[in-house]
């Protein structure tokens, strides 16, 4: 019984880590009051998704998806089982850079909000918003 639980824990460790990170991120986005902390939660959530994608791309006994072109000519048969899945890497490669760019937009919005309301706490911003109406 204990061995079975341990085996499940170890064999799917990538999913556990990604679920844990995702929950931390969701907790940050939903519960935290400070906008800055919400953005940190959002970044953790993104990291969780990136980790999930990259771990899906893994293959046992396979190498990185770069063909050794010095030995292989165009006629050499390339077997898909020898290389890990390149697709998740492509998607995450762009996602990481886009994440940085969108984080920049989020931070500039935070600066703008701070200038307008002099606070980043949501419960202090909301009354000010109602007064403005």
């Amino acid at each position: 019984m204990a061995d079975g639980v341990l085996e499940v824990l170890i064999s799917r460790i990538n999913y556990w880590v990604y679920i844990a990170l995702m929950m931390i991120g969701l907790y940050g986005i939903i519960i935290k009051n400070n906008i800055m902390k919400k953005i940190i939660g959002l970044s953790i959530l993104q990291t969780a998704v990136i980790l999930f994608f990259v771990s899906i791309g893994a293959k046992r006994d396979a190498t990185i998806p770069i063909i050794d072109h010095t030995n292989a000519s165009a006629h050499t048969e390339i077997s898909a089982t020898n290389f890990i899945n390149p697709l998740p890497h492509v998607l995450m490669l762009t996602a990481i850079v886009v994440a940085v760019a969108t984080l920049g937009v989020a931070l500039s919005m935070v600066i703008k909000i701070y200038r307008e309301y002099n606070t980043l706490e949501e419960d202090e911003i909301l009354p000010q918003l109602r007064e403005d109406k």
Partner: protein
Amino acid sequence: MLAIFLGGLLIYCSFEFPLWGDPHAPASTHVSPYYIENTLKDTSVPNIVTAVLADYRGYDTLFETVVIFTAGIACIFLLRTYKTVEPDIRLYRHIPTGITLRIEKGGKFPEGSRHFERLDTAWVPYDLIVKTTCRLVIPFIQIFALYVIAHGHYSPGGGFQGGVIMGASLVLFAIAFNLRSAIRRMGERLIMLLAALGVCIYAGIGTLCMLLDKNYLDYSAFANILAFDPASARSHGILMVEIGVGIVVMAVMVILYYVLASAGKHDEGL
């Protein structure tokens, strides 16, 4: 509560997921074997990731690039203020003697003098070690960035990674010296033009392919004018596109730093 509920749901689902490193997982069975087995034949690019990024999934990458460009523009629109407010005090250092001058508001000072350098109010002391180290390191970082962009076919690398490294070297310069000297070297207008130029290179390559009687972003069109076989024409098309991506990413990283570090005023940062 909601987070724990969703977590439970995900844990339940993950029992159905394929095991770690399973070669027969659904993610590795549909298009990915085609990419792995045909990349070298189709594009003569050994790095499959680069080939998929810029050729098979060229549209995706084009619009990712546009997203990054748009993020940079949005940052400028949100924060940039063009009104120059005269600061309360300005600090100048006399370079030969190291004396720091403090000019109160309204005080006159010859801006163009070569013997004085303007200082940030936040950091007055000398930072000789930091500046010298950065001066030594930055050229090598930039060479490495160019290598990563240009060698994206044969080794891990490409436009996104190289662009980020290049942007990081410029940000490092702005941190080690100050924002003013960084903007003097790499002006705001220039950096915005570079960001637009990168997108134009990418989209322009696509349009060029269309003008040469192929589909948008089908680089084998260059085989008609450049006397390559279609595979190596694709490889050259990928390189050109990667250069465009690298320029965009570099420019947007620098724009983000300039705007965020000075909160849109472009005078003093960090």
